C-alpha cells in the first residue's frame, strides 16, 4: 500500500495520471456526443434514432465503438503505408495536446502556462498536417480533394479566428486561460459577451464588438472543425467522404474521435473567452471545484448543441464562397473590431 502511494507521489507518475484525465474525458464525451448528435438530428427530422440497445438506445455508441474496433483494418494496396497509419494519430495528438491548457474547473487545468491560448492555436494547427497526410497517403482522388480543401479551409479560417482571439486577449491583457476565466468570475454580468468585468461605460462600448467577435470566432471555429455549413472536406455528396474515405476500423474511429474532441475544444474556447469558462452564472452560488467543472462542461455542451443544430439546418457552402466568407467578411470585421477595442481599452 505504501509502495503504491509512494509510486503515485512520483512527479512523473502524477503527471501521466493527470494527463490521462482529458483522455478519459474525451472518450466519455465522444460517446455521449455521438448519442446526443444522433438524437438531436433525429428529433429535428421527426425521427427517433437509436431505440433498440438499452433504454432509448443509450448504449448504442458503445456498440458502435465495439463494432469499429473489430472491423478489418484495411490499408489500400497503393497507399503510402507509413503516412496512412500515422495520419489519424497525428490528428488526434493535435487535438489532445490542445486539451492541456483547458481550464476544466477552478481546481484543474492540465498546464497553467501563460501562453495558454497561443499554445492552443498552435497545437490545434497540427490537425491540418494530419488531414493532409491522410488525404495524400490514401492515394484516392476524392481523399486528395478533401485533404486539400480542408488544408485551405483551416488555414484561411485560422486568420479570423486568431484575430478574434487577439481582440479578446487585448481586453484581458493575458493569454493565460485560467486567468481569463477568473477575470470573468462573479456571475453572468461579468462575462465578456456582456462586456466583461469593467466599468459600465466601457462595458457598453465593448458589448457590440464582443458580440461580433463572438460570432466571428464561432463561425471560424465551425470551419476549423469541418462542420456544416463548412463541412467541405468531407462533403459526402461531393467528395464521397473526403480525406477519410479509405479509412476503416479503428483508424476511422480515431478520426471520428478527434473530430468530436475538436468540436468540444472549440466550443470550450468560446466558453472560456466569452462565457466565463467554469464560472457559475450566479456569482458565488453553485461555485466550487466540482461545480465549476459542471458549468464548464454544461456551457461547452450547449455550444456543441448549437453546432449540431446548425449542422442539421443549413446547406453547405462552396469552396470559393468559403474563402469569400473568411477573407472578405470575417477578416475585415475582425480587424475593425480589434481597432475599435484598442481605442476602447486605451480610453
Amino acid at each position, binding site marked *: 500500500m505504501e509502495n503504491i502511494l509512494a509510486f503515485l507521489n512520483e512527479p512523473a507518475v502524477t503527471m501521466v495520471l493527470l494527463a490521462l484525465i482529458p483522455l478519459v474525458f474525451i472518450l466519455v464525451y465522444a460517446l455521449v456526443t455521438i448519442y446526443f448528435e444522433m438524437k438531436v438530428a433525429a428529433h429535428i427530422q421527426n*425521427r427517433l434514432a437509436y431505440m433498440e440497445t438499452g433504454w432509448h438506445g443509450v448504449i448504442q455508441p458503445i456498440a458502435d465503438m465495439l463494432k469499429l474496433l473489430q472491423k478489418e483494418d484495411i490499408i489500400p494496396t497503393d497507399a503510402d503505408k507509413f503516412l496512412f497509419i500515422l495520419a489519424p494519430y497525428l490528428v488526434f495528438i493535435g487535438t489532445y495536446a490542445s486539451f492541456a491548457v483547458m481550464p476544466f474547473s477552478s481546481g484543474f487545468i492540465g498546464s497553467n502556462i501563460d501562453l495558454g491560448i497561443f499554445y492552443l492555436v498552435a497545437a490545434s494547427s497540427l490537425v491540418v498536417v494530419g488531414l493532409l497526410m491522410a488525404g495524400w497517403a490514401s492515394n484516392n482522388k476524392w481523399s486528395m480533394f478533401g485533404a486539400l480543401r480542408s488544408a485551405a479551409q483551416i488555414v484561411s479560417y485560422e486568420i479570423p479566428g486568431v484575430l478574434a482571439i487577439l481582440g479578446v486577449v487585448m481586453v484581458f491583457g493575458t493569454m493565460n486561460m485560467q486567468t481569463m476565466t477568473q477575470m470573468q468570475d462573479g456571475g453572468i454580468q461579468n462575462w465578456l459577451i456582456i462586456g466583461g468585468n469593467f466599468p459600465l461605460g466601457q462595458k457598453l462600448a465593448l458589448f457590440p464588438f464582443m458580440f461580433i467577435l463572438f460570432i466571428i470566432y464561432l463561425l471560424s471555429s465551425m470551419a476549423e472543425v469541418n462542420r456544416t455549413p463548412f463541412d467541405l472536406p468531407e462533403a459526402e455528396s461531393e467528395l*464521397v467522404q473526403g480525406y477519410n474515405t479509405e479509412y476503416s476500423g479503428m483508424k476511422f474511429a480515431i478520426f471520428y474521435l478527434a473530430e468530436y474532441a475538436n468540436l468540444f475544444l472549440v466550443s470550450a474556447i468560446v466558453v472560456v473567452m466569452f462565457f466565463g469558462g467554469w464560472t457559475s452564472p450566479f456569482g458565488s452560488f453553485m461555485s466550487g471545484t466540482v461545480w465549476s467543472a459542471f458549468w464548464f462542461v454544461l456551457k461547452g455542451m450547449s455550444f456543441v448543441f448549437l453546432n449540431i443544430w446548425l449542422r442539421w439546418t443549413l446547406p453547405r457552402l462552396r469552396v470559393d464562397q468559403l474563402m469569400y466568407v473568411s477573407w472578405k467578411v470575417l477578416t475585415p470585421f475582425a480587424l475593425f473590431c480589434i481597432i475599435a477595442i484598442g481605442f476602447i481599452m486605451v480610453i
Partner: protein
Amino acid sequence: MTETHLHAIKTSTGRTLRTEEMVVNMGPQHPSTHGVLRLEVVLDGEIVVDVIPHLGYLHRCFEKHCEHMTSYQQVIPYVDRMDYVAAMTNEHAFVVAAEKLLKIEVPERVHYIRIIMAELQRIASHLIAIGTFGIDMGAFTPFLYYFRDREKILELFEMTCGARLLYNYIWIGGLSHDIPPQFVERTKEFCTDFKKTLKEVNDLLNYNEIFIKRTANVGILPKDLAINYACSGPMLRGSGVDFDLRRDDPYTLYNKFEWDVIVGKGEMGTVGDVWDRNIVRQREMWESLRIIEQAIATLPEGDVQKAVPKRIRPVPGDAYGRVEGPRGELGFYIVAEDSVTPYRIKARAPAFVNLSVINEISKGAMLADLVAIMGSIDIVLGEVDR
C-alpha cells in the same frame, strides 16, 4: 476527350508551374449521382473541364420486354418500373398512347381521377427531387420533412390501389379500382396539411441565403439551348420557356381547371440557373394542389371500369401519346400489328433527354456546382437507362 492535358502556367514570379488535368469518376457508386450514373469528369483543380455521362448500368430492356407479353394490359407493370418515383405518370402516358391507338373514349370520372393521381404523383416526385437536391447541397433535414409528407401521398395511393410505389392502377380504358370512400376526405386533409410543409421548407431551404448563393447563377441553361436539346418539364420552364403539355396539348381534361404554368424568371440570378429550376418545381406543387382541390370538388360520378376493353387487339397502326410528367414530356410511341401485343414500344424518357445537356451547362463550373446541376436536372436512372 479523356486523356489529360498538361498545362504550363506562368506564375507572377516568372516561374512555370506545370499543372495537370485530373479525371475522376463520379459514380456509379457516388452518393450524389442519384442512382447508378457514371460521370467521367475532367477537372482542372476544382473547375470542371468536361463531363461525359456513361449510361446503362440500370438497363433492363423494358421496351423489348413489352413486345413479348400476352396482352397490352401486361405492359403497364413494366412501364411502372421505368420511372419508379413517378409510376402513375408512366402508366398515364402509356395509357394515353394506347387509348389513342385503340380509339377508346373513357368516362369523365376516369379522367378526373387520373388527373388527381397524376398531380399527386407529380407532388410526390417533386418532393423527392427537391429533397435530394437539398442533400446534394448538404441540407439533409428538408429531405426528411418532404419524405414525411410524401408518405402521406403514398398512403393515399396504397389505399386506392394497394401498392405504394408501382401501382398498375391506370388501365387502358379506365382504372383498376374506383377510389375508396375515404379518399376524398383524406386528400382534402392532405392538401391543407401539406401547404404548411411547403411554406416551411421554402423558408428552410429555397430562400436560405447559402442555398441561394450556391444555386443562383450556376448551371445556366439559356432558352435556345434548352430548346435545341429538347429539354422539357421544369428544365425547360426554368429557362423561361412557357410550355406545358398540360396546357398546350391538353391530353385529358386539364383545360377544365384553373392553374398557371410556372416559369423561371431569374429572381435570384440569371434565367435558367439551378435556383430557377428548383423553384419551378417548388411552385408547381402549389399549382398541383390547386388542380387537385378543384378536381376533388367537382368529381363526377360514373363507372371507372365501363370502357375497359375485354380483349385488346388494335388495328395495325401506330400512336404517340405524351403527358407532362414531373420530369418533362413523357411519351410512348406504340407500333401495333395485328396481334395482342405491341410490335414495338418506344419511350421518350424526359430524364434521358434532359441529362444530355449536362456537358453543355457544367463546363467551367466547380465540382460542387456539378453536383448542384445534377440535382437540378432531377434524373431518375430507372428512366434514363430503362
